């Protein structure tokens, strides 16, 4: 299963809700304002790192770039993908749940 999160973790509790439901072996893709959760140096980063022990994390590169978020400061282990990579993830992980 692929979970997408498009909200800032500082504004809403959407990411928390997603992480409460992402089973081991599933994946989380951060898109739109959700990409802020992929950055190092915030209190959110610790939660993401903890979740990464069981769940794979991806982040949408075009959304990082738009927001001036430096790819070098993305949490180690989170893979940056483009729109084509997004498509591939939906194929690889099966059903998609969009946490809106």
């Amino acid at each position, binding site marked *: 299963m692929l979970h997408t999160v498009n909200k800032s973790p500082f504004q809403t509790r959407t990411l928390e809700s997603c992480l409460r439901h992402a089973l081991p072996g599933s994946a989380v893709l951060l898109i739109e304002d959700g990409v802020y959760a992929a950055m190092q140096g915030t209190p959110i980063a610790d939660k993401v790192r903890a979740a990464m022990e069981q769940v794979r994390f991806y982040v949408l590169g075009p959304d990082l770039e738009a927001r001036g978020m430096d790819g070098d400061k993305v949490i180690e282990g989170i893979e940056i993908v483009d729109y*084509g990579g*997004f*498509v591939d993830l939906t194929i690889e992980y099966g059903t*998609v749940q969009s946490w809106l």
Partner: protein
Amino acid sequence: MKFGILVNEGPFQHQASDTAYHFVKAALEKGHEVHRVFFYHDGVNNSNKLSEPQQDDRNIVQRWSKLAQEHGIDLVVCVAAALRRGIKDEILAPGFRISGLGQLVESGIQADRLVVFGD
């Protein structure tokens, strides 16, 4: 792979329609099929042909029309959501058609993946 897409927000206010567009474009480039994009909630506003963004900005409505015409994608606007919001045939952009919610359920049945874009 066959994709169905659901767009829940209108153009410009939220990024949902943009992300959906780039997703569809990437899927097509990879040789997949996108059989239908269903526009629901404020998503119906993506079909308003009167939309005229500034010159230096993207034209979201035209972009969908063009993609549909080039790749034979079925752009379906939910009739109930559209009536509520004032989207009717007289202002419908090329390539869009207005139909019922059954088209969304059918898309879920027929597609290998249904991907939702919203707020």
